[in-house]
């Protein structure tokens, strides 16, 4: 290779051999509990808290600089509106109403998504159906469904749930299906080797193996459910004065109580953060992270 070097290149030295008797390994435990787990957790909160604080600061700064509190109230003004709303109990009430509907729609969307995807993994027809339906309906805005919802479900929460399902179902199905498709062939064969098929195959092999993709579908679905709910409550939500958070936002927006609007939005954010950091990330820690499927 290197013609200028020694003819056959370097030769390693010949070293003496040795052979030791190893005492049984006792010097350190082969396994020991991780000590700083708790501390790390706190730091996680700390770091995220700092990010949130920084965002709040930027917000307040922007608001002061723009100086247009009817359009963009500051962080502090929003907080005081939020406090007022929480103290007089109105906001919590609204949140309760919204969450009740949201969760119903979300769960229904998830179940339907799994049904559709199960069909898609088992038959060619299901595959075509899924790809056609998602390509068709996913881009449709909720207003397209409004007339149908009015006709079929009327003005109650039935329509809200219908629209929520529309917003959760398609992204969820797309992600779940992509996750299913990425399941390693060997794992699939293992499952089928043990005689699993149909729903039990999906449940015991595909779903856990595709969990990372499903999880991000769940997160996206959750977010879009919120977005849709707030938009849809403007239309369906206020029957008999029982409007949720979306209605609260809409009404105050119409009355130009922009600080209350932002208080409502902050509540959406807070709920989002709580769900992300308590529910989703705990779920992640207990599943994909523990199983080494995501770091």
């Amino acid at each position, binding site marked *: 290779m290197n013609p200028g070097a020694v003819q056959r290149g370097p030769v390693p030295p010949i070293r003496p051999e040795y052979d030791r008797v190893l005492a049984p390994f006792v010097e350190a435990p082969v396994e020991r509990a991780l000590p700083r787990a708790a501390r790390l957790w706190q730091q996680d909160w700390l770091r995220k808290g700092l990010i949130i604080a920084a965002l709040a600061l930027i917000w307040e700064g922007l608001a002061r600089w723009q100086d247009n509190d009817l359009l963009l109230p500051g962080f502090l003004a929003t907080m005081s509106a939020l406090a007022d709303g929480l103290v007089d109990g109105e906001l919590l009430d609204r949140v309760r109403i919204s969450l009740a509907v949201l969760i119903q729609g979300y769960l229904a969307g998830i179940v339907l998504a799994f049904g559709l995807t199960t069909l898609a993994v088992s038959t060619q027809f299901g595959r075509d159906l899924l790809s056609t339906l998602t390509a068709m309906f996913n881009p449709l805005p909720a207003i397209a469904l409004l007339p149908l919802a009015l006709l079929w479900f009327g003005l109650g929460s039935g329509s809200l749930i219908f629209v929520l399902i529309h917003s959760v179902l398609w992204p969820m199905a797309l992600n779940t299906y992509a996750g299913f498709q990425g399941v*390693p062939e*060997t*794992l699939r*064969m*293992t499952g*089928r*080797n*043990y*005689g*699993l098929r149909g729903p*039990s195959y999906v449940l*015991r*092999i595909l779903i*856990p*193996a595709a*969990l990372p993709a499903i999880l991000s579908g769940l997160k996206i679905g959750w977010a879009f459910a919120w977005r849709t709910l707030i938009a849809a409550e403007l239309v369906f939500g206020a029957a008999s004065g029982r409007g949720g958070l979306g209605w609260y936002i809409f009404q105050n927006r119409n009355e130009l109580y922009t600080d209350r609007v932002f208080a409502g939005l902050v509540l959406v954010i807070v709920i989002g953060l709580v769900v992300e950091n308590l529910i989703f990330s705990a779920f992640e820690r207990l*599943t994909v992270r*523990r*199983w*080494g*499927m995501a770091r």
Partner: protein
Amino acid sequence: MISAATLSDLSVLELAEPRPRAPVRREAASARPASESGESPLLRIRGVTLEYRTPARVVRATHRIDLDIHEADRFVLLGPSGCGKSTLLKAAAGFIAPVEGEITLAGVPVRGPGPDRIVVFQEFDQLPPWKTVAQNVAFPLRAARSLGRREAQERARHYIDKVGLTPFADSYPHQLSGGMKQRVAIARALAMQPKVLLMDEPFAALDALTRRRMQEELLALWDEARFTLLFVTHSIEEALVVGNRVALLSPHPGRVRAEINSHEFDLGSIGSRAFQAAVQRLHTRLFETDPETRAPTRTTAS
């Protein structure tokens, strides 16, 4: 193995015939394999051609394979890398349908996979990563056998101990080394106590010591349960030790070149004269790469 025979069930009728113990036979190059001996094989592979279809082209993995695997056989497939051993095993397991020929199990054509033929795959990702070692081993027991929870756990523990992974029973697969993962797969397959066991280079990732232990374990279990084993390996020694019959496949696309008896070797015979000779013979056979230039070597059953 003798079940109520009906006249219409040909394979069962065949079973009832007397079992001829054919002595050493020399065969011409065109000879048909041993199935002529009259004993009906449990797993019968007849003219099986296997192909992979990719969007761009079709790859033929094996070409017109004829093999008979009898009940309680420890049948070994030996052949160069890429010759279609894994593919053939997967076809026997029911994952790949032949484009030509037929595979029958006890006379019934193989249509799909099932828990009657448990497979140990060659790949390391056959363990569901969301199950601990213990759960992994118990998994098929619960899924396919509908064993009770307690029972499945106990059986799982027993086989985990056999592969020496008791300290890791609660670890997840990603926390194991390559060899350890393969051992979990082996434990899982053994725990199923299947009638037919298909193993694809199960010991390839194991060190000499562990490998030896696993071989012992496998043979001991076979002695006990007399399952039928189809075993892929690339180690000649292992083929002779584990198998009672070894099929040699040609390079890509795989065709059966020879079948050799090895029932007289076990772990104890390693190092013996006869064993070394057999190894040497197979070695020579494998190292003759060019089929055209080679004269047919007449072999004698040992």
